[in-house]
């Protein structure tokens, strides 16, 4: 694999480029193993887990988190964070619904939904690059604004306009037997993996988070890179919002609420370092898959609902801790 040659060394890694390549692969491999072990464990106790219907259902359920995690992991690799993904998602779905409600066609409605993402990304990006706000604060602000706008528009009541059947396909259709949102996820995963590994833009994203000063001195336009990743993150989230609306045909006032935590957790489980420079798109998607698998397992296994969140948190901590320990033992540092 040639990615080691064209990826700058991230901060905190003193070893050779080859080590980085192995490390990144090892991290994804860890999550994959965790997925398989967890699946095996759940199957021991219930016959209903390993069925095509259930696995496809689970994939569809975590696909939106995973799609948003693709954008998030790019932001995290630059050393930033995007807390506004849930608001961008919810507001995009709502704006799409409003367009249908006003009698616009589906092209306009979808475009308007995606435009919400573009605006979110532009505002986040400008706050962070032009004004210089810390990403946490900038996106916390836009999270809150988006949430407020949703309540102002909906007054707390879901919006359920009538939509053409063809629009519902986006969220409810199948490419037998795979649900369409999962297909979209896989396409985005492949495209953005290739971008991250094989394009100059991808290398600049790693460089910006690895050591921003060094990257800037060697000619990387770090501000422009940051603006681009926030734009991408919001755009991808708004796409998730349009898909969610197509799936449920109901724009909920609380749609996307709190989903940023799942999305960030997915990226972290997938090996992304919150201090920047490290992470991968496939890892983030597998992280989302692990969270989705746990959520499905606890219901199938009839585990007390009050314990579910604690179990999910515990599994996340164990998964990430094992990953860190394993890498330390292997002499990564």
């Amino acid at each position, binding site marked *: 694999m040639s990615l080691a040659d064209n990826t700058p060394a991230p901060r905190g890694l003193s070893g050779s480029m080859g080590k980085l390549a192995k490390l990144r692969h090892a991290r994804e491999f860890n999550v994959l193993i965790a997925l398989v072990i967890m699946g095996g464990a759940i199957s021991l106790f219930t016959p209903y887990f390993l*069925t095509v219907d*259930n696995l496809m259902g689970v994939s569809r359920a975590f696909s939106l988190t995973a799609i948003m995690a693709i954008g998030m992991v790019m932001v995290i690799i630059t050393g930033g964070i995007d807390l506004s993904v849930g608001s961008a998602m919810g507001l995009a779905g709502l704006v799409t619904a409003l367009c249908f409600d006003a009698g616009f066609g589906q092209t306009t409605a979808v475009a308007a939904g995606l435009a919400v993402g573009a605006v979110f990304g532009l505002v986040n990006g400008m706050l962070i690059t032009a004004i210089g706000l810390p990403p946490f604060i900038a996106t916390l602000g836009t999270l809150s604004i988006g949430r407020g706008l949703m309540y102002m528009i909906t007054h707390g*009541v879901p919006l359920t306009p009538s939509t053409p059947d063809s629009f519902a396909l986006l969220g409810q259709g199948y490419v037998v037997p795979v649900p369409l949102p999962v297909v979209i996820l896989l396409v985005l995963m492949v495209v953005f993996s290739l971008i991250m590994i094989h394009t100059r833009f991808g290398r600049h994203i790693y460089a910006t988070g690895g050591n921003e000063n060094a990257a800037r001195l060697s000619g990387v336009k770090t501000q422009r890179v940051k603006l681009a990743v926030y734009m991408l993150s919001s755009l991808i989230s708004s796409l998730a919002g349009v898909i969610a609306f197509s799936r449920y045909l109901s724009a909920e006032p609380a749609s996307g609420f*709190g989903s940023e935590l799942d999305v960030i957790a997915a990226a972290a489980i997938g090996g992304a370092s919150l201090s920047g420079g490290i992470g991968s798109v496939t890892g983030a998607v597998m992280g989302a898959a692990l969270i989705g698998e746990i959520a499905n397992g606890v*219901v199938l296994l009839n585990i007390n609902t009050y314990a579910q969140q604690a179990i999910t948190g515990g599994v996340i901590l164990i998964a990430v801790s094992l990953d860190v320990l394993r890498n330390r033992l292997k002499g990564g540092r």
Partner: protein
Amino acid sequence: MKTFAKLAGAALVLGTLMSTTAVYAKDIVVALVPKVAVPFFDDVNNGGKAEAEKLGVKYQWVVPANTQGATQVKVIEDLIARHVDGIGISVNEPKSVEGVIKQAMKAGIKVVTFDSDSANSGRSMYIGTVNKQAGVTMGEAMAKAVGGKGEVAIVTGQLGASNLNERIDGVKEALAKYPDIKIVATEGTEDDLAKAVSVTEALLRGHPNLAGIFGISQVGGPAVAKVLGEEEFAKHKGQLKVLAFDDLPDTIKGVKDGFIDGIMVQRPITMGKLAVEHLVAQIKGEETASKDIDTGVTVVTKDNLGSYTK
């Protein structure tokens, strides 16, 4: 000036002669204070306004800007300063308004709570849904729907919400009388439709013989209807009895489409009407010993979908 005073005096005398109670009623001002601006409270307002017109009293609808306890405290302080005669309030935060409600009562203003109570505030009465009782109604409706036996599951919203937990207590109390009905799962959804849909799907896969689902919070009905509309779960339609809470558009559609068997609908219009009625009676001194009123829930099914009242 003198002429004006004379005219006013004459009008007053005339008014008194015409009807003694009407003069008193015209001077009465009652104010209703909701939690925040949502459609549920629009219904309360309509009920309250209509009753005030009927009784001939002045009526104010004062909506707090946000759901913080402090905001309602300020609203009540303003109403005390304006010397209104009665206040009905749906409390956002029970503890924070205790002091100011006591202060209002001390100033001679009658106070009732509706929809959401502050039990230790000294208010004269509470008018609203007793959630536990609504749960009992729901549990009994389910027992009837499933014929007294089978596995049932509960899909709720936020795990910590006390009104939802009271409804669940009521459901359990009602089902305790039916030993052949077993509650096999209770699942939280954080009131998120997406989460509720995937939880319901997993429930149906994990319990293929499920006979009934309780939608305890407002996402339950739309979520179960959505799932039963999917091809994989179509076989459950009609087989699976579904009871939901609150008449949101998607829940009503679920009843029309045959996915949902019944909705527990609260009675906000009745709450507004009763709040004004009892405040005025207390102000006139006609009602002295007030008792809490459970406005109950209407069970809305396909049969009374077009005709139920709130």
